[in-house]
């Protein structure tokens, strides 16, 4: 229990301290930030491992006439692990990327605050708590989106807020209805709505999906995501490829498996349409991505597509599909953060943000482009990379649910992914290596390069030995089936 509380509080305390430290004192701030991130990481892992080992953690208190509940289960623990780990990695990268930039105080303080809130989303034990953290996440990450304070950033921020709050509105309505139907909304091993009947449940499900779907960027609710790419790269990498969007994905998986439950879901008409909505997003997302010339926008549209892989796995309502979804949650986050980190290094070191002008940069940034290449192969779903396994289980889940075309969708998407990323990597090594300046030396570059290469390496390792994460994945699956 104490682990859970400390994990949640690390970020908040760190954020407060960071806000109090004078803006000029870089060294102290860095110390505080890393202390907070490290403590969040340690206590998160302890919490998660306890949960995977079968411990039931629960914390309930009444406030404002409502019951608030924190109770991480294996699914939440999985999210906690991913978020806290990548937060530290992104912190390292930020130390290199943000060095010498202005407004660091606000950056780091909201960076830490968002950490706490994301862990809160993961650990929420009922719909009320989940809703609170979900809303707070929007508010705490808004300052990070508009960090540059340019006109473009402010506009993107407005779009982010409008989309997120509208989604939250739908969510609130859905939660109210659920509460009215059942009188509680606690996440337990029995789905909240178990035993309910009626066609209206289809509409309730749609309301939930629309609410969480905004952050999970299901098409056509995705438009805020590409615009939010004006944020600094570590933020794009962490929040817009993993933490914020995963909170939407996590919410949907919660709704499907804890609020409705696989049994009730399989009787709903709308639930049968969901895999196809996800398939649409998968294909159209990556097709649009391929035509984006600004690298970060390409990555953003690609995120939209990949998030729906996870949703597709969850929507198959099969243990195999859910295994795939969990594996993809892990694998995709590692690789996508790598891709964003590479994009950041390229932009910082060469000033190039447009894909069509990146020909030849590979000779100046060989390690970066090697990591980019590894991650690209991963996005295709080729074997030495971890994403093969997620895709493999997603496809098996699709076939097991009786719809073999879902497997075909994933294969097609893999081919389009190849078209999307491979040419960038190959073109980066066009021309001669002679006469190119080597741009990978210096402390701030190393600070960016180390986490990038590390993540690519971990992805390879998991690819060769998926057993590393298999127990966690199975714990999640077993908690629902």
């Amino acid at each position: 229990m104490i682990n859970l509380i400390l994990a949640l509080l690390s970020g908040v305390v760190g954020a407060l301290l960071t806000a109090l430290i004078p803006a000029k004192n870089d060294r102290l701030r860095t110390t505080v930030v890393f202390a907070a991130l490290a403590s969040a990481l340690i206590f998160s892992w302890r919490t998660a491992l306890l949960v995977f080992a079968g411990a039931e953690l629960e914390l309930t208190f009444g406030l404002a006439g409502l019951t608030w509940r924190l109770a991480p289960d294996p699914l939440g623990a999985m999210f906690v692990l991913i978020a806290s780990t990548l937060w530290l990695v992104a912190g390292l990268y930020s130390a290199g990327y943000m060095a010498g930039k202005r407004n660091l105080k606000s950056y780091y303080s909201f960076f830490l605050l968002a950490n706490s809130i994301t862990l809160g989303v993961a650990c929420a034990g009922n719909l009320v708590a989940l809703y609170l953290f979900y809303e707070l996440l929007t508010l705490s990450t808004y300052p990070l989106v508009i960090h540059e304070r340019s006109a473009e950033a402010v506009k993107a921020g407005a779009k982010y807020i409008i989309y997120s709050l509208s989604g939250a509105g739908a969510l609130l309505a859905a939660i109210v209805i659920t509460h009215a139907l059942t009188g509680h909304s606690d996440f337990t091993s029995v789905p909240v709505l178990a035993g309910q009947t009626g066609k209206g449940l289809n509409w309730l499900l749609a309301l939930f999906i629309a609410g969480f779907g905004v952050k999970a960027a299901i098409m056509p609710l995705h438009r805020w995501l590409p615009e939010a790419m004006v944020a600094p790269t570590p933020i794009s990498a962490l929040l817009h490829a993993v933490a914020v969007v995963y909170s939407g994905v996590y919410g949907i998986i919660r709704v499907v498996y804890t609020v409705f439950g696989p049994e009730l879901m399989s009787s709903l008409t709308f639930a049968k349409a969901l895999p196809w909505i996800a398939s649409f997003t998968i294909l159209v997302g990556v097709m649009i991505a391929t035509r984006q010339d600004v690298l970060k926008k390409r990555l953003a549209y690609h995120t939209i597509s990949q998030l729906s892989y996870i949703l597709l796995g969850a929507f198959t309502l099969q243990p195999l599909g859910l295994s795939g979804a969990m594996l993809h949650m892990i694998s995709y986050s590692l690789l996508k953060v790598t891709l964003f980190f590479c994009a950041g290094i390229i932009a910082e070191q060469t000033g190039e943000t447009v894909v069509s002008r990146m020909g030849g940069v590979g000779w100046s940034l060989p390690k970066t482009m090697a990591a980019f290449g590894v991650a690209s192969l991963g996005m295709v779903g080729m074997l030495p990379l971890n994403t093969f396994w997620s895709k493999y289980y997603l496809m098996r889940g699709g076939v097991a649910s009786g719809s073999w075309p879902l497997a075909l969708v994933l294969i097609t998407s893999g081919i389009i992914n190849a078209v999307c990323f491979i040419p960038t990597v190959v073109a980066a090594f066009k021309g001669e290596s002679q006469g190119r300046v080597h741009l990978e030396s210096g402390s701030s570059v190393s600070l960016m390069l180390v986490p990038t290469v590390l993540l690519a390496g971990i992805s390879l390792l998991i690819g060769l030995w998926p057993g590393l994460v298999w127990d966690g994945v199975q714990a999640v699956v077993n908690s629902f089936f």
Partner: protein
Amino acid sequence: MLLLLLVLLPLVGALALLFDKKRAWNIPLLTCSLVLALAIFGLKPVFGGGTISYTLNLPGPFAPVLQADPLTAIFVILAALLWFAVAIYAPKYMVHEGKVKFFELVTLLTYSAVLGVFLAGDLVTMLLFFELMTITSFFWVVHRWNREAIRAGYFYLFFSIIGGLLIALAIVFLGASAGLPLPLGAGRLTPSNPTLFAWAIGLLLAGFGIKGGMAPLHVWLPHAHSNAPTPGSALLSGLLIKVGAYGLIRVGELAGWGITLGAGTAWLSTTITLLGVLTMLIGVAAALLQGDGKRLLAYHSVSQMGYIILGIGVGLYLGPDGGLGLVGSVYHIVNHALFKATLFLGVGVIYIHTKETDLYKLGGLWRRFPVTAALMFLAALGIAGAPGLNGYASKTVLHHAVSAAAASGETWLIWVERLFNLVGIGTAASFAKLFYLIFLGKPTELEVAENESPRLQIAMGVLAAVMLTIGLAPQLFPNVLGLPAAESLGFAKLEPIPGSLFWNFTDLKGIAITLALGIGVCWAGLKSGAFHWHPPLWLSLEGLGGKVYLAVAFLWTKGIALYHSLTKGLGRAGRFLAGKVSAAYSDLVNPKDGAALTGISATAALLILTLLALIAWYTMINPVFNVVKIVLQW
């Protein structure tokens, strides 16, 4: 352990090479010799019956399995032999291409991956090494990083990636229809869902067909093989495409060797046979028209893969009597690897001394390179199928299998046999052309450097010696190695092949006629200039592929534009509605003069009515969702 060691040794070699600064040792050659010795002595017991297998017991969903049966052993030893020869050849050659160390590194990594593919004990392990092989060998193709090489690299990479994805999909389908795991070397699968199983087999056929250069999926091959540095080309043509053939043999195993295929997979044998013939024809026709030595050899790889694929198809078609087809196919894989690698290495020798691979600019070089010329002559005779060399041996076995199939009297099979002979003539013609244009004819005007190192010829000589041995004792290989392989794949005990199968008047007469006709065609082609004919672009698959590519790109763009305009329309509608709502709201707060009577504008009234109607309708169709009840409860 032995199997793991075989796969890991090249990796260790690569690591050593990476950290070796002084270059005191020739690490690639050392590694390759070690692996060759280990492969020959370690895998010998396999032919006596029984298999070796090794499972790396990792917890989790993936525990790599390695296994060796006679078929595996043949491929592993073949790979080891080829890599050994190339390791002798490459250091001298690559000085002329640059980036020697990187090339050697890639070659060792590919070696490990290739051995892994052959030694894999289940389909997933095989896919792992298959993909690794694609990635590492890609660096051979783009070694020069110029425009042409990058284009070839794209072709290679995209086709290979698609092949890998198709195999992955096939694994999923196989798992769903026949259960997991999917061991190799354990006989055929019994599917619970025959339709899905048939789809899976079809996908595997396409996936391995891409790697094996099977028409019409061979488009990438000539580009890739002619752009890689010569040692890379030799290995690509000699071995990497054989991975595709190996895969097809294993696919046959999943469907069932040595039995008459059931209703669900009966199409497989005819499809493979027809695709094999198509591959032979397209390859040889295109090869005849090539003016570039390496491209000619690359197209011949396609054509010779056709023989191999045909053998597999006929072997499957004949069911229990198909042993000769399978054995001939494996035999031809070995022989083609030997002579094609020798030919590539020979063309490479000419290239580094003249900087030219265009045949029409070369000529009369036998005086300057007598040893190379002699070795090339042997290899050319081998591929053309002259008796006494290895090509004759395997083509004869294949020919007997095809004749056996044609004896069934089916028209299309009779035509297959006729085309088989036709392709033989084309092969003889194009190698007569290759040899004539390089070594005979009028002397070249290019500057020719002195022959710099006998090592290049030694490498070719190693391969040529094996070719001669096989050619002079043609029944040795199939009886000692081929039959155990076929039997381990599911055939009943097969009769040893007698020497008279090769040394009889009919077959010798046949090949004599073929060779004579081939030389005739070559003479006629060179005299008339027919070999300079360039087929129109639309006739080539590249041209057609370009059209398809444009069509896809067009649909892609239009589709996205359509989607964008749809979402934009939705957004506009939403904004319009929102505007109406806010206008109605401001009407409520500041009623216009006309609306002051009620305080509610017409727009607002309409909106509220609509909402009320919605609620009423919703309540009516959903008694459970009694909105009133919900409101009361809250």
